[in-house]
């Protein structure tokens, strides 16, 4: 496939910076961008999973040095994640055989980007309007989730909570990783903060830790089952991505984030709108060749 090398490096770098700034894998932006420039959705998803391994390793190492990773929590999350992503790749393969994988990927993106973009926009708009306030102390009220069995002690997060919760979160994130080519951080980070009640400082590093293993699993399974991982494309993305992530992680400590967040929200909404438009507008040719021949 002939794509411009500099375009790929640039895209990788830009998304990398964003991922370093906001602690998410960047996949939910990269995969749709890859689809836009003409790479088949199935290949975009699998190859992006490969690239996310690299940027997540880069990010985790940076967080590890600051002791902001809860490895025990990460392990529980990743057990769920590996199970979820294995199921996800199996589902992916079936949908591909039915000729419906492109549609499912696009619909999932429209749904998720729409929700995330909308929430981000509202949240960052509010943050810009509101004057700076210290966040109130976390009130620890008991919900039905505190009654679940298999409780475990997570020292780094100072939590005593049922292991079933992180397992379930891990499974959901794993399925998303397989079908959408994302790390799942944009689901995991809010889930860790609001459902598990983890301290914000540890959330990003732990989430990246889990993402490494889930996306590695997806990469291997996609390569074996569907041969949709393009190593050469992934390497180009990685170069831009890991450099960008390091820049972003450092910049995140210094920059004023509200304005950046609104821009990011707008970008996410824009990508979502374009994908949605493609789904509802009449295609140029109602008939299309299936992917039986590949070379």
């Amino acid at each position, binding site marked *: 496939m002939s794509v411009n090398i500099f375009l790929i490096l640039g895209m990788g770098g830009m998304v990398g910076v964003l991922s370093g700034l906001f602690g998410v894998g960047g996949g939910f932006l990269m995969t749709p961008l890859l689809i836009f420039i003409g790479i088949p959705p199935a290949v975009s998803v699998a190859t992006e999973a490969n690239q996310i*391994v690299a940027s997540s390793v*880069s990010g985790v190492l940076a967080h590890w040095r600051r002791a902001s990773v809860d490895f025990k929590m990460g392990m529980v999350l990743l057990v769920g994640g590996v199970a979820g992503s294995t199921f996800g790749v199996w589902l992916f393969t079936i949908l591909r055989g039915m000729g419906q994988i492109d549609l499912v990927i696009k619909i999932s993106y429209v749904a998720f980007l729409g929700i995330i973009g909308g929430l981000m926009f509202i949240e960052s708009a509010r943050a810009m309007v509101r004057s700076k306030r210290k966040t109130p102390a976390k009130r620890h009220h008991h919900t039905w989730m505190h009654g679940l069995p298999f409780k475990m002690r997570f020292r780094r997060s100072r939590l005593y909570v049922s292991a079933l919760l992180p397992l379930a979160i891990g499974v959901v994130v794993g399925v998303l990783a397989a079908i959408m080519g994302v790390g799942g951080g944009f689901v995991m980070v809010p889930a860790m903060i609001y459902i598990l009640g983890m301290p914000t400082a540890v959330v990003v590093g732990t989430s990246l830790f889990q993402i490494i293993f889930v996306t590695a699993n997806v990469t*291997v399974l996609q390569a074996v089952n569907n041969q949709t991982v393009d*190593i*050469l494309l992934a390497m180009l993305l990685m170069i831009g991505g890991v450099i960008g992530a390091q820049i972003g992680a450092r910049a995140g400590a210094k920059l004023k984030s509200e304005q950046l967040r609104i821009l990011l929200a707008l970008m996410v909404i824009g990508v979502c709108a374009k994908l949605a438009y493609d789904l509802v507008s009449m295609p140029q040719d109602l*008939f*299309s060749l299936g992917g039986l021949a590949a*070379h």
Partner: protein
Amino acid sequence: MVLAAASQASAKELVVDLSKSVVAITTSFSGSELLLFGATEGKGDVIVVVRGPLRNEIIRRKEKIAGIWVNQEEMVFEQVPSFYAVASNRPMDEFLSSKIRSTYQIGIDYLDLNLSEEYRAASGAENFRRALIRNKQKQGLYGRKPGDVIFLGNRLFRSQLIFPANVAVGSYGVDVFLVRDGAVTSVETTLLTVRKFGFEASVFNFAHRNSLAYGIFAVLIAAFAGWLAGAIFRKA
């Protein structure tokens, strides 16, 4: 390299050769051109047909469901040529009847595109058949109009065979027909191979033959790249 059975000692009516018999796809492959040339014994019309490796193809049709365009109906065509090109020295309708063209499958409209077993009874097959041809033409793999066979004098002829960048790997059959008085008096067949060479070929083979190793390798490269970036930036 002529692969014709030279069973008789008598002079052949038609001889054919190619400028090269292998099309090598390397990393920067953007298409290839070959020269086909030959000679006829006496006057006649010449038609060249190039057929690529046969494979099954699925055609899917979209319908609007709940506002979204979704792939609904599909049909599978068996053993369809992945590439098809035809060339002649003058418009074929002038010297060859439809019946003969059907027999030898000369021309896109006369190609036998067979549906696989389970779809044969389905209606609307004609639309799918035309869609298959249309999509292949859009990919540049089925010619939109016949090419030229140029005669130099009465006996020597040549034709430029053009292969786009996305041709499939495999064995291609080149058939050359000599037509006199509305009948095919001679057919010569030559084989052509399209193969991948070089780095990208190795990567492709690696991905398809040793998928597990390839996948693990991809992950290891990624992990290393992540670590390397961290190490470099720590020093900076």
